[in-house]
């Protein structure tokens, strides 16, 4: 056969597999797939060892599922545990976009903009793919959004492994440096949500060891994130809103009072910060979530800012300025 010597491109094999599994109601066994589907059948040996091909099939299944294709495994009745009799299929209803999920031109424009928010990392790839699927519906956008480039950054190396573990409900381990502590401590947690608050990424996670749910700042994760094989049961409701609300409550509760040099950069920028209130001519009341981060921000203003309260923040800013002066002296 002429086709046996020709190389079948990977995408052709994957595409043929999806088509074959969509077309079957009863499902296909692995042997049926490997011996008949384009891209596999050319390498299939009816009498010999197909273990390479079987591994190929396992990887292909993962690749396909990652695209959101619901590739199902069905056990033959009374045959549980027998791997050779498993059947595979892609139920059409679970594969296709429901018929009532359609988007207007205005919605499509907005979704294009939402996708543009991500310019780096896996979220950028995911949103590009989502837009491709959206275009599949044939809706043309109302207007190209020029002159507008909102962007959310994902710079922390921990983000990718954490979002992966989040998706697969796997426990992770990392070293975390809490401010004020001498050395980082290894934390083992079940990731529940990744949220950005005030421009910073946080991990919301259950810590089985302490029996508590905690929020970790991604930039304080100082080691590579290690994903374990231990899985956990994810909460039924999306905990990200709860995580953001928790951060917001802390932000609401914490108040600093600072004196700013009139007309200075500090006066202008701190004055425009969300939630800032003028106490008198030169004093501002600021909300914050993390004292150390606010201390860094305030120290940057040098002599334009004097912290009045709380005392711990005052000390933190003062020691930062002392340290910077000493390091550069």
């Amino acid at each position: 056969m002429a086709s046996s010597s020709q190389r079948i491109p990977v995408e052709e094999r994957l595409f043929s597999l999806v088509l074959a599994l969509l077309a079957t109601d009863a499902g296909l066994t692995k042997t049926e797939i490997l011996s008949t589907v384009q891209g596999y059948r050319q390498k299939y040996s009816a009498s010999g060892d197909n273990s390479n091909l079987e591994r190929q099939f396992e990887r292909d299944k993962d690749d396909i599922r990652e695209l959101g294709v619901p590739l199902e495994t069905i056990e033959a009745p009374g045959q549980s545990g027998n791997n050779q009799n498993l059947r595979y299929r892609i139920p059409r209803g679970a594969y296709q976009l429901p018929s009532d999920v359609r988007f207007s031109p205005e919605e499509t424009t907005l979704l294009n903009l939402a996708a543009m928010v991500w310019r780096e990392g896996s979220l950028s790839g995911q949103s590009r793919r989502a837009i491709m699927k959206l275009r599949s519906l044939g809706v043309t956008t109302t207007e190209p959004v020029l002159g507008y480039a909102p962007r959310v950054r994902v710079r922390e190396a921990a983000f990718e492994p954490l979002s992966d573990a989040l998706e697969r409900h796997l426990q992770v381990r990392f070293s975390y440096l809490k401010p004020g502590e001498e050395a980082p401590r290894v934390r083992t947690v079940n990731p529940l949500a990744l949220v950005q608050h005030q421009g910073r990424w946080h991990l919301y996670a259950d810590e089985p060891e302490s029996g508590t749910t905690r929020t970790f700042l991604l930039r304080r994760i100082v080691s590579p994130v290690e994903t374990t094989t231990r899985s956990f049961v994810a909460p039924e409701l999306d905990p990200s809103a709860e995580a953001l609300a928790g951060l917001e409550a802390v932000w609401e509760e914490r108040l600093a009072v600072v004196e700013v040099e009139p007309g200075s950069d500090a006066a202008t920028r701190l004055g425009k910060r969300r939630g800032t209130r003028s106490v008198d001519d030169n004093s501002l009341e600021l909300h914050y979530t993390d004292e150390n981060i606010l201390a860094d921000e305030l120290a940057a203003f040098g002599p334009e800012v004097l912290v009045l309260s709380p005392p711990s923040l005052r000390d933190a800013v003062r020691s930062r300025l002392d340290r910077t002066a000493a390091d550069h002296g």
Partner: protein
Amino acid sequence: MADRPQPQRAQDKLAFLLSLVPYLMDHDRVSVTEVAEHFGVPAEQIRDAVRLIGVSGIPGETAMYQHGDLFDIAWDDFEDNDQIVLTNMVAIDDSPRFSAREAAALIAGLQYLSALPEHSDRTAIATLMSKLSRGASAVPSPVAVEASESDETLALARESVERGVQLEFDYLNSRGESEHRLVDPLRVESVDADWYLRGWCHLREAVRTFRLDRISSPRITEKPIAHGATDVTLPDTLFEGSADDLTVTIDIAAGAVALLADYIPEGAERTDVGDRVRTSIRVSHYHGLKRLMAGMSGVATVVAPPEARAVVAEWAAAGAARYSSRP
């Protein structure tokens, strides 16, 4: 912002094929050019995909991929006229669902945009988010972004860009000087919680980036802009380098290098000095540098030149002095 062309992986090519088929099914006859434009990809990528679709199908009852089990296209129309006409279809009826992570990426993007002036209709955004959830093959991943803050300056900046009219405002630079600026607004950009206006500055006669939180008394003029987005090049990075930039050598904690990524010029040398990295950053003047360094106390230190060290030391010492001169 220009989309960088990415080399396509087999998985991406598959996603594209699964998206292209339903589109072609909805269009009885469509030109390669039109499809390429709609999907925003090169025409050759469309042709490659169509060639593959045209010979693909299901094994069928005979397990032999017989004619009726395959997609088919009007090949002559395709080869001669660059037109696509599907003449036989198999297996696929409609567009694929979003994956959990794809839906999550769009939902989180929408959350970020939801508080902006033009999206005052919160129910429309909520409807859209729920549609994305229902259109996903699994529950969208829990990734969320706080809605970005909006204020009058942002609304005015957006309006001036859209209308193509000049914007004037008082701008406080990092030297602490306030100047009146007249600007041809070209693009409103954000990075996380910070917003910027990029435009042609009539005072500096160059493209400049303005932080919105440093702008006071903004006012929209009726004067049309003198320089449009097509007349000037807006660099992809937010901070446009200039020939007058100063290069400064710093030592920085290895884990914090990413925080200064915007300032580190491409190809800058990096050497390890103990647990720190020695590298160089570019700044337009030392007034920006002193603020940057004072905000990274204990994390980054200027090594050279001595003038730069002195400016930072003086700034921090002046700040510290305020605490000793008053109780």
